[in-house]
């Protein structure tokens, strides 16, 4: 099989950052080429160059043997390049069908009028192909994040593409949808279409990749055939060292002291939710997409008012009217959607990190600058946040580093209860390991942690107890020891 695509010697700089340095890769037609590497390694940037969003400083794109210079996305699309972006890009007010076919609407004759019948009919076909049962006329804003992610996938595969770039397409979906996606990728391969697949999930990569390229600090570390590699080798290529066991089990015994009790909680999409959280415990919440986990967390954290129910923190019944109140009761939360609800992208790393704990870092009404700088420097080191400086705008950080800033912000409030909603979404394996060991440490020091995750390996690996949600109800409570994916999935689906 010949090479469909070649990226030759690509370099790209942003203000203060050298994102890519002489990167070359070749992609064979009808193959899946995985791109891996730490957060900020330059994967997305490389793909945005291929997609016509960024212009390279140096280097060339060769597609089907011809050198191409894409002046914009449209150009790249017409040449047969299609991309699923790492960041979701929904148009909330348009319908699902309009979102999928944006930029390629079927028209009536040559009039410029949209053929809505054809549009919806085609959308139905695509939706069926990705196994999503929603009407094409539904507005995008009514979808959950996971559903939006599936729509992005639908959008990319409905282009007449020769190369489809998938930048972390599974970061928001559960295993059922992953299976659907991989089925589709299989079909694409059979049709001779190449897929460039970016992910931080080892198991996925090994399941579908033919070739793996690892990047670090804007350079290619190496390209191998997937079957030549094993897990440990891949990890050491990525992080430059080998990692110890990803998950560490609890060292101290649970004291049984209750931190949080939730009774009869009811919201828009969940009912009759009971659970308790103990000191030093990591409590997992598993479930399919849209099973209501995020909304429960929001209710506990004061972001949404529940319709009914009681929340008791350390024996005191609390009214969670706002996140501030929840914080005053010792609760902190890291949101699943860091761009929307987590970070102030126009502000700096330092400003974001201290936003929740600013009153602790101030004298009277004034921010104590020296103390703030000191704290921020310390936290940046602790979580290995790679940013040019504490004053860099968060918007220019890689996704993983943004996530670390969000976690640091929550922890600076010194919570006794920490809610983590999909905390490792989009995070590289090294950072994941850091977050896991940090969670363990925090729990060992007495914090109660709620971990909402769609990644079953981490639920199984780190949690002391797991609650499974199914369509807004608690369907099972499982012990941390000795559970497997199948058990969880059974309770989650039924």
């Amino acid at each position, binding site marked *: 099989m010949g090479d469909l695509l070649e990226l030759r010697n690509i370099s790209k700089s942003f203000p203060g950052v050298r994102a890519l340095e002489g990167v070359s890769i070749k992609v064979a037609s009808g193959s899946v080429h995985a791109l891996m590497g730490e957060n900020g390694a330059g994967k997305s940037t490389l793909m945005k160059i291929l*997609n016509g*969003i960024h212009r390279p400083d140096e280097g060339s794109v060769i597609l089907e043997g011809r050198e191409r210079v894409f002046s*914009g*996305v*449209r150009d790249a*699309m017409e040449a047969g390049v299609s*991309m699923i*972006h790492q960041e979701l*890009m*929904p*148009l*909330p*007010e*348009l319908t699902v069908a*309009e979102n999928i076919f*944006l*930029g*390629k*609407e079927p*028209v009536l004759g040559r*009039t*410029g*009028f*949209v053929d809505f019948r054809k549009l919806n009919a085609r959308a139905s076909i695509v939706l069926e192909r990705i196994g999503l049962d929603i009407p094409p006329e539904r507005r995008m804003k009514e979808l959950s994040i996971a559903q939006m992610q599936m729509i992005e996938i639908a*959008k990319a595969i409905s282009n007449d593409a020769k190369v489809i770039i998938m930048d972390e397409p599974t970061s928001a979906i559960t295993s059922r949808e992953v299976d659907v996606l991989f089925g589709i990728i299989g079909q694409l391969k059979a049709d001779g279409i190449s897929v460039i697949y970016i992910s931080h999930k080892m198991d996925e990569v090994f399941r579908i990749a033919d070739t793996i390229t690892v990047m670090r600090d804007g350079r290619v570390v190496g390209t191998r055939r997937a079957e030549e590699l094993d897990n440990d080798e891949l990890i050491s290529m990525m992080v430059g060292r080998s990692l110890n066991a990803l998950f560490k089990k609890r060292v101290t015994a649970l004291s049984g002291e209750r931190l949080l009790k939730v009774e009869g909680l009811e919201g*828009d999409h969940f009912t009759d939710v009971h659970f308790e959280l103990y000191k030093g415990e990591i409590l997992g919440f598993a479930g399919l997409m849209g099973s209501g986990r995020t909304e429960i967390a929001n209710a506990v954290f004061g972001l949404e008012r529940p319709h009914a129910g009681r929340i008791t923190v350390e024996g005191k019944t609390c009214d969670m009217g706002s996140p501030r109140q929840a914080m005053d009761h010792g609760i902190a939360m890291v949101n699943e959607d860091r761009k929307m609800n987590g970070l102030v992208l126009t502000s700096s790393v330092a400003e974001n990190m201290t936003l929740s704990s600013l009153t602790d870092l101030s004298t009277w009404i004034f921010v104590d600058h020296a103390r703030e700088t000191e704290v921020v420097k310390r936290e940046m080191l602790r979580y290995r946040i790679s940013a040019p400086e504490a004053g860099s705008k968060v918007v220019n950080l890689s996704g993983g580093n943004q996530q670390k800033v969000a976690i640091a912000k929550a922890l600076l409030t010194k919570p006794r209860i920490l809610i983590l909603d999909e905390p490792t979404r989009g995070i590289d394996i090294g950072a994941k390991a850091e977050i896991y060991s940090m969670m363990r440490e925090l729990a060992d020091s007495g914090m109660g942690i709620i971990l909402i995750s769609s990644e079953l390996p981490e639920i199984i690996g780190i949690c002391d107890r797991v609650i499974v949600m199914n369509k807004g109800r608690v369907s099972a409570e499982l012990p941390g020891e000795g559970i497997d994916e199948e058990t969880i999935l059974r309770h989650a689906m039924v």
Partner: protein
Amino acid sequence: MKEANIGKERFYRRYGVLLSFIIIFSVLALTTPGFLSLSNLTTVLRQISINGILAVGVTFVIITGGIDLSLGSTVALAGVTAALFARQGGDALALPLIAGITTGLVVGLVNGLIVTRGKVAPFIVTLGMMTILRGTALVVSDGRPVSNLSNAFNAIGGGDLMGIPIPILVFLAVVVVSHVILDRTVIGRYVYATGGNEKAAYASGVDTDRVKMFVYVICGAFAGLAGIVLASRINTGQPNAGVSFELDAIAAAVIGGTNLSGGIGKVTGTVLGVLIIGIINNGLDLLNVTSYYQQIIKGVIIIGAVLIDRNKR
């Protein structure tokens, strides 16, 4: 119960403006003698036509997340230009019409270019243009009203066609064309997409710069048209006409549910917004409310209309 709730929200989202309109209309109909007469309602329609044309035009711009503060000055400049040709051109109508609309088009083009190429915020571009165009209108007319216009030209604002005043017909044409563009065409989809999430639209292959050019040009062209209608209504190209027209137009669009941060808006909503402002102005005059209190009441109703409709979004 939850379903009912959702239903209610939907209802508000779709019909909130209509509700505001119906309430205000009913109150006026009940309290104001003469309000419901056919001749009065025709008067209202004629009165709103200029603001209506502008409001529909600016709806396009606002949906993309932009704004156009140069509308009022464009009206003045286009009116003056059209009048200059209507004076020289005998009874020929084509020349003044072309001159007025072209003026608007060019203004829109310049606005669009500075916004897209210069990457300057639309608020500041069109604010600057507002002064520039006002100055240009004064230069072109030498600071004096341009008058002695041809009868044919004056007939645009004063005449009717089948009993319907021409300004109303022009407004209706603008409404229909705009509604079709926004609701049915590909470029209409792109307008919403660009305003809803510019990055996403761009990443989907939409040429967002071209879309923005399009909306400023169409808004400018409509403003040119409004300038012609105005000049012919007052038989003069008035260089100081149209001051703060843009605010009424934007208010109408927003009352009608157009979202200033982009992505949301409908021509039908804007028309309702225009009607609301129109009947308030008319009703307060009919009720003989002192002009100072008129201003207060008008402000209250504008805010109130949006409050009733606040469930939007």
